[in-house]
């Protein structure tokens, strides 16, 4: 197995809070890699650092063999990392289809002249964008909601739409931030099928999740963060038995 993403000694500080401390981890191509940890452990921060939303204080990130540049989210997306957000961030007043079409931005190129003169090439590209958007809506199972406004979709469908939009960028690595949060059991089961399908289609997945059962069932390997530090990284069965992990979960989140 080859490494798709290597984070080496990544750190991030917010004022006095050390949100990430020297995090080193490797995600292999083709696997589903879980990232778990108690609330406030730094999982989302890791995503934000990875995708260029926050600048990291230290360390480096290698993706597909080349270093990721700091602070340029759109370049990270172009390099092949797409993400969803813990608190869903759709374009609420655009339709579901338009949301996915925006996701094609990184892989298309029509500019002002193409838009105004509608050359044959520009028209073909626009048609391809639309076609791909419909395919992806179908892929995540919301083909019939294409014309609905994103904010009128049910919670579960919004999560799916966000995944479709992320897939539209043709990622090598898809990073999902708590995709099952707020979902009921049926929706979670469907999500699981979707993510397994992604792996079968060759997309590497980085999954932050609270639902331990889902993570353990789905992931090939799991890393555990606690107070910004990686305290374990192994196959799910081993992680579950790791005393440090048990300690972090029992000691960390009483609520």
């Amino acid at each position: 197995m080859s490494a798709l993403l290597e984070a080496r000694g990544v750190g991030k500080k917010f004022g006095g809070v050390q949100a990430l401390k020297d995090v080193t981890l490797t995600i292999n191509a083709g696997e589903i890699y879980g990232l778990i940890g108690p609330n406030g452990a730094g999982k989302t921060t890791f995503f934000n650092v990875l995708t260029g939303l926050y600048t990291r204080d230290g360390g480096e990130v290698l993706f597909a063999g080349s270093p990721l540049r700091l602070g340029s989210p759109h370049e990270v997306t172009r390099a092949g990392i797409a993400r969803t957000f813990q608190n869903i961030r759709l374009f609420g007043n655009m339709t579901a289809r338009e949301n996915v079409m925006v996701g094609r931005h990184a892989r298309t190129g029509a500019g002002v002249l193409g838009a105004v003169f509608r050359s044959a090439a520009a028209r073909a590209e626009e048609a391809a964008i639309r076609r791909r958007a419909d395919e992806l809506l179908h892929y995540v199972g919301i083909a019939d909601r294409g014309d609905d406004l994103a904010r009128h979709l049910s919670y579960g469908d919004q999560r799916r739409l966000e995944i479709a939009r992320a897939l539209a960028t043709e990622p090598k690595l898809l990073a999902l931030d708590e995709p099952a949060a707020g979902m009921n059991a049926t929706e979670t089961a469907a999500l699981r099928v979707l993510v397994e399908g992604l792996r079968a289609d060759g997309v590497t997945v980085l999954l932050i999740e609270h639902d331990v059962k889902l993570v353990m069932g789905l992931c090939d390997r799991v890393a555990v963060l606690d107070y910004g530090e990686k305290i374990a990284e192994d196959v799910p069965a081993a992680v579950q038995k790791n005393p440090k992990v048990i300690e972090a979960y029992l000691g960390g989140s009483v609520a």
Partner: protein
Amino acid sequence: MDQKTKAYAGTFLIAAVLAVAPFAVGGAFGNTWVRVLDYAALYIILALGLNIVVGFAGLLDLGYIAFYAVGAYLYALLASPHFGLHWPAWAILPLGACVAGLFGVLLGAPTLRLRGDYLAIVTLGFGEIIRIFMNNLNAPINITNGPKGIARIDAISIAGQPLSKAIEIAGLKIPGVYLYYYLFVVLALGIVFVSIRLQDSRIGRAWVAIREDEIAAKACGIDTRNVKLLAFAMGASFGGVAGGLFAGFQEFVSPESFGLMESVMVLCMVVLGGMGHIPGVILGGLLLTVLPEAFRHGAGPAQQALFGKVLLDPESLRMLLFGIALIAVMLYRPAGLWPDARHRREMAEKKS
């Protein structure tokens, strides 16, 4: 009638109305009012340009009139005795679009991290800076002729025929204001076309995405910096064209024409009409050009007839009514008089 026939019929109707409008208006109310229509077309071009920045991309720009000024002064400098240059309009207007677009990028670049109120304040400052430059660039080298402005600017000519002079076609005398009307309307239609095409494109979607959620837009691979700059540049270039037309039409420019009040006026056209909605913006431009003129001409005589004397100076009354109308629209139609569905939803969302 099927869809296509309807579309053709509609287009034909609009074309016919636009074609006879100056004759109807000129015949009924006199040529002063055709001149008002000329200005309306100019303002519609301006408003459509600002609409790209404010309506499409959601960036509040209060210094937009600066690009109008740049276009106007460029025309004035290149086609007047001031420098003894007499370039033709067809060369200056595209150049004006480019130069104004460049200014758009220059003014846009430092403000990219700002949003909302902060962006408004900074762009307001930029607008004033340009005006102050126009006012003061008469020493040590006299470039803009300062507050006195530049006079005796060449009228816009087409095929050697200056539009300021009446022409006769088959015994029908067509005055200059009519000719300008047709030129401005044709250009405004061109700008409408460009706006519609832009809105329904990859770039247009990117603008809406940035307006809706900038972080998500970035995560979709949109280079928000470039796409915003593009909005500034496109909007500014429309303003530059309008400015050039204004200079050729008036044959005189001075810094006074490009004050903050003008920026506010154009912004009002966009906001009152319906941000981001092209028909709404056109309506806004038309109403806010024609109604104030109507008040100016009508308020004095109306008071005379009602009260036997003029109680309120028409100019102040005009501003008063304008203010009241603005407040009323913001209260009862916050998304504008003729909003598009998306903005209406956004406004409803903010309210609830």
